[in-house]
């Protein structure tokens, strides 16, 4: 248990740090991120600029702060979209499956498979080719791929709840499957969904970084971590800090969320916790 608390504390700490930085960036950054100062370009990290400046003389710390905010915003909304559409679909599929009409379930799941079968980055590129690169299209592209994930997870979890006796009891009380899904199933799979959401969130951060790395995320002058990395690429030989800080920010952000997700799983998901305890049980003490 100790091991997991540490991961939760480290993860939670990192995440909180980034969230504070992101919120702070709404009100204050050390410098204006849209302020270009060619004369002050490539300043090395120091007192004046903690993380140095880039090729336009912009303050990297400020850009990392705003970039983090953008990454978090994109990921949150994208995961939110995925959950908002995917979870009801999954619950619906599970309900119809339990009612014996497998057609809707099959249709939904095959639809999910179809989205799953599309190479994600390619589809995102195609979506942005259709609508032009923008932060909203990045959200849509990432959001679409979250739908099947949430649909699957919630369907699977719901299917494990449906045979429970309290569901039968609710059905005996005359409750329909929609009401049962919302009253009994959803609250009981919520923990699992929250854990999944943290995982998806960290995946979305990387996806956003990849998209903006190829130039399809948020557009300049709005800073984005992925684009900063892309721009830094050719300058890494003489100004490596341009790449170290945004790259490090992505890694720390994802790491933070993953660790927190792991810790949360142990706290929130009693089944897994129980499992991990019985897991210890089979490890002998000799």
């Amino acid at each position, binding site marked *: 248990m100790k091991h997991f608390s540490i991961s939760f504390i480290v993860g939670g700490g990192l995440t909180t740090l980034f969230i504070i930085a992101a919120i702070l960036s709404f009100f204050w950054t050390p410098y204006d991120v849209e302020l270009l100062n060619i004369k002050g370009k490539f300043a090395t990290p120091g007192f004046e600029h903690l993380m140095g400046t880039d090729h336009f003389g912009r303050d990297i710390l400020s850009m990392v702060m705003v970039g983090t905010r953008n990454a978090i915003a994109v990921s949150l909304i994208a995961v939110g979209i995925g959950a908002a559409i995917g979870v009801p679909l999954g619950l619906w599929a599970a309900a119809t499956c339990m009612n014996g009409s497998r057609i809707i379930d099959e249709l939904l799941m095959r639809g999910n*498979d179809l989205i799953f079968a599309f190479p994600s980055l390619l589809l995102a*590129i195609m979506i942005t080719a259709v609508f032009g690169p923008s932060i909203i299209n990045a959200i849509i592209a990432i959001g679409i791929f979250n739908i099947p994930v949430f649909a699957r997870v919630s369907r699977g979890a719901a299917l494990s709840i449906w045979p429970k006796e309290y569901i039968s009891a609710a059905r005996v009380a005359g409750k329909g499957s929609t009401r049962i899904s919302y009253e009994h199933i959803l609250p009981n799979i919520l923990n699992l969904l929250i854990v999944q959401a943290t995982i998806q969130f960290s995946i979305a951060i990387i996806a956003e970084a990849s998209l903006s790395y190829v130039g399809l995320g948020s557009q300049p002058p709005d800073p984005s971590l992925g684009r900063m990395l892309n721009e830094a690429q050719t300058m*890494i030989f003489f100004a490596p800090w341009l790449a170290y800080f945004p790259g490090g920010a992505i*890694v720390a952000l994802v790491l933070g969320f*993953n660790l927190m997700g792991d810790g949360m799983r142990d706290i929130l998901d009693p089944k897994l916790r129980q499992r991990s305890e019985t897991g210890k049980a089979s*490890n002998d003490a000799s």
Partner: protein
Amino acid sequence: MSSFLLKKIISLIITLFVATGVIFILIEVVPGDPVAFMMGLSGSTEAADALRIELGLNVGPWARYVDWVWGMVNGNFGISYTYRVPVIELIRERALVSVPLTVYALFLSTAIAIPAGLISASRRGSLVDTSFMGVAQLGVAIPNFWFAILLVLFFSTTLKLFSASGFPGWDAGFLICLKALTLPAISLALPQAAILSRVMRSSALEVMNEDYIRTARAKGLNKNQALLRHGLRNAMIPVLTILGLQFSFLLAGGIIIESVFSLPGLGRLVFQSIVQRDLIVVKSIVTLLVFSVVFITFIVDLLYAAVDPRLREGN
């Protein structure tokens, strides 16, 4: 079993068919005329019209869709707008880079992840476990393109061990090609290995709680023997799923890695084709990639059956 197979194959075909529709519609709405693109900033309109006829872009969308799908059914993927060679030839050339790269990366990630996951699981909570899983966490968190850049910096420019970019072609020799693919494969494999080792570990841990492991231990097998002889195959089932997903992901997901290392792979071809509006190439490759995903899922299903006698007998 045969009806199970038949059902799978039918659903495979339907999925592909629907996929072609989705792809076609998506491609149709992509703005930007391929002909205008090819003509550039100062191309003449007359030449553009001639080109349009030459490329078969002067007919309606429905006719083009039917032509395209019917062509693919007959193994004819059409002629690339920009390269003017059969698409299938382009795909074959690129697949000769992408598929080996994928296999290589998958081999690396499996070779790292499965032992690491097993060791972690069997020494749960130990220093080894904690450090392995710490590295895995880090591996999941590092974007692969960023990792690739760091690798290039270190191996190509600092150590000058590997050639930074390009692919010499298979006729240059197997080892030379393998060397050219090594850094890209590592940068693709690391995040995958991180994910895989976590799956392997948790799957192994779960299996270790199973009653049959206790039976095996009661027989007198020690923990590791019990895990290897009775746990491994059972634990491989979720790992297989992930492996299947990773294969498809790697096949198409190497776009960025391919461009960092200047590898002429499938991913870069599609990316370039989207940019150049070589839509017939985009359509065909995306279809092919979708097909490969569906097909690999199918293979994984068959593998399940090979591992699990319960599925083999179609229960």
